């Protein structure tokens, strides 16, 4: 985030523009996008290379660390990226402060809750008994 010449030295050190916050959110969205570029292509390629998509085959695959670890990362990063992206959309269209807070709170709960459900299911698969 460029502050240009108008920032005071202290403001430059703190990284504060006139918006005071948002730089970190902006950067996180981009960092997670690059991670998802890799993880998303990994998931699609993996599913295409599996001999079949029946339950047994997929469970055996997710039982291996080389699949479970990227899948865990995919879950965490995709829910985070979705939350960050949806917040931008919500902030653009829901202006009234009370409504904005309520919708963003709902989004946060949905993202954290959904991510937890997906991670728990993956943990059951990865740490469970033989498929």
């Amino acid at each position: 985030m460029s502050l240009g010449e108008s920032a005071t030295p202290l403001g430059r050190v703190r990284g504060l523009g006139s918006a005071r916050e948002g730089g970190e959110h902006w950067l996180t969205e981009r960092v997670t996008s690059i991670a998802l570029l890799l993880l998303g292509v990994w998931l699609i390629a993996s599913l295409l290379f599996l001999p079949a998509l029946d339950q047994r085959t997929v469970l055996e695959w997710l039982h291996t660390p080389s699949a479970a670890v990227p899948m865990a990362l995919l879950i965490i990063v995709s829910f985070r990226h979705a939350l960050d992206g949806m917040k931008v959309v919500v902030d653009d269209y829901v202006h009234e402060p009370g409504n904005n807070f309520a919708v963003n709170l709902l989004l946060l709960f949905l993202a954290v809750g959904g991510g937890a459900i997906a991670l728990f299911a993956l943990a059951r698969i990865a740490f469970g008994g033989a498929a």
Partner: protein
Amino acid sequence: MLVSILHRVTGAGLSIVGLAVLTWWLTALAGGSDAYATFSKAAAHPVGIVVLVGLTWAFFQHLLSGIRHLVMDTGAGYELGINKRFAILTLVGSILLTAALWIYVLEYRR
């Protein structure tokens, strides 16, 4: 303009529908054979296939226009001709990738 709007629409679609499908798939996998049969049946249903094709296209479109945004974040690609060509490339690329993937899945993997 269109590509910028599509970036939002596909992003929202992937966030809501895409993550719901991913979570359903994982919970069905962990939930036993009945749960997975329910998921498989829905996924193989014509409506399910339309949703999955739509999600695949949304993923590729969002990925390609995302790359375009990352390039533009560096300050490059704002010249009118280049900007428009890059935008059109994301549309053509996402359709080609989606078609290639689903022709392969439906013709060779069934």
